[in-house]
């Protein structure tokens, strides 16, 4: 099962929903790994949606690609990583017209970054639908060196850029598409509690 019920949290933490087909001129769907399942569910609920749809999928080792292709979208692209897909996403958004529907599904890191691209293109964040599937790992920004550490699953963790010991906060920035990580042993250097898995 790829769905996870996030515990209730503070107001800046994003809340994800279930993708709903909305009327629109065209439909852009961006998903990674198990996020493909949310697109498959969406397609099943709404006949004919794929005629004007463009799917961008990053499999991350999963094999949903064939099923997505079988939906017969107007355009289908499979990329090896989000950074590899990024310029394509930017190109699609740059030319988009009002009425475009944007659907994001999969990990928080993918949805956050793609949402950010849509915002930069001029879309209000409330106009973008999201559905979480798969890994609950987080994209973290070190508040000290500003470096991003992807796919963080343990708390505390070490910043891959500056090496500080960081704890994971629920405070989330849409603009950075990341949660905030803060030094855990600033007041008592070296005193770092053992790491535990998020939500465990």
């Amino acid at each position, binding site marked *: 099962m790829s769905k996870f019920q996030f515990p209730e949290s503070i107001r800046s933490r994003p809340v994800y929903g279930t993708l709903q087909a909305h009327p629109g001129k065209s439909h852009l769907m961006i998903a990674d790994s198990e996020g493909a399942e949310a697109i498959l569910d969406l397609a099943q609920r709404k006949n004919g949606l794929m005629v004007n749809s463009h799917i961008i999928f990053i499999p991350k080792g999963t094999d949903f690609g064939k099923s997505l292709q079988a939906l017969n979208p107007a355009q289908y692209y499979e990329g090896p990583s989000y950074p590899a897909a990024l310029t394509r996403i930017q190109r699609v958004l740059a030319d988009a017209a009002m*009425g475009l529907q944007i659907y994001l599904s999969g990990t928080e890191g993918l949805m956050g970054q793609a949402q950010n691209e849509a915002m930069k293109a001029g879309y209000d964040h409330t106009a973008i639908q999201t559905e979480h599937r798969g890994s609950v790992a987080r994209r973290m920004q070190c508040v000290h060196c500003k470096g991003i550490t992807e796919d963080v699953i343990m708390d505390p963790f070490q910043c891959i850029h500056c090496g500080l010991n960081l704890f994971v906060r629920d405070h989330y920035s849409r603009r950075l598409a990341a949660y905030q990580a803060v030094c855990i042993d600033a007041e008592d250097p070296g005193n770092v509690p053992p790491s535990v898995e998020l939500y465990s």
Partner: protein
Amino acid sequence: MNVPPPNSTAPKSTGAKKIAVTVSAIVRLNSLVTRFEFKRCDGELFPTFSGGAHTVVEMQDGDIKRRNPYSLVSDPAEREMFAISVRRDDEGRGGSLYLHEKAQVGDQMRISFPVNLFSLDLRARKHLFIAGGIGITPFIAQIKQLDRTHGNWELHYACRNVELGSYVDELTTKYAHCVKVYYDENGQAIDLKRLLDGQPIGTHLYVCGPKGMINWVCKAATDAGWPDAHVHNEEFLAPKPGRPFAVRLAKSGLNLEVGEHESLLEAIERLGVEAPYLCRGGACGQCETNVVESEGTFVHRDHWLEDDEKACGTKIMPCVSRFEGKTLVLDR
């Protein structure tokens, strides 16, 4: 004027700060619409404002003090003068008739500092304005603001006929390539479906006009997949006349009768009870008042309360809403 209630540290203002003004010019734009210009009595400069802002004009019409909101149509950067355009409403309660028939150059009035409940979304890559009739007024100042800041905009303006096209000449002369005018009586209509199709991502849509037009544009935008956050509308409600009704103000310990041609808010003010307000048009939420007791039917006309709040009858917006029934007691 504004006496702060005891036991409260929060400023309780009954409206935005006021400016004493003199009517400096009255210009008839056509058979329905007249433009009024004001200068400050104290010789100071007016504050600047943002396009889409309104001012509440206070008029002493005999025994009645009228307070009507009007969009500012002067240039937001112009500090010497403020201007409004008023459409004559023969069915209304008299504010516009007072201005059209009684106001004279040289009259002194009080107007409020500008308040904006219909401001531009400055993130927009493009501003698409749709106006119907007198709904052109907020866009006049917004266009002047965007002109100054090199904004990207386009106006589609529907009027009944050539004679009633307020500001058409000015707009089409100065901004020929950004303005398109449609005359109903010539069978011209905005091709909305086509207009909404193909606007670049990041466009914001603004509509101001009669209720039917607002609903038509908002629905078309939703059907075309436009996000709600990109669609803005302003409908100023004027309080409608209605059957007189009785009210008790619990805190003040006063009973009053709301007349056919006055709003509940005006009746409360008539008794000298200060009640907060900003727009007097059911939009800003400032005058929200708790209902202590009621037996009868509410006539909710505001855009502020949620449907469930309207249904349960515990709140009323006295600027535009009324009551029909036996008992109404307010926490005021």
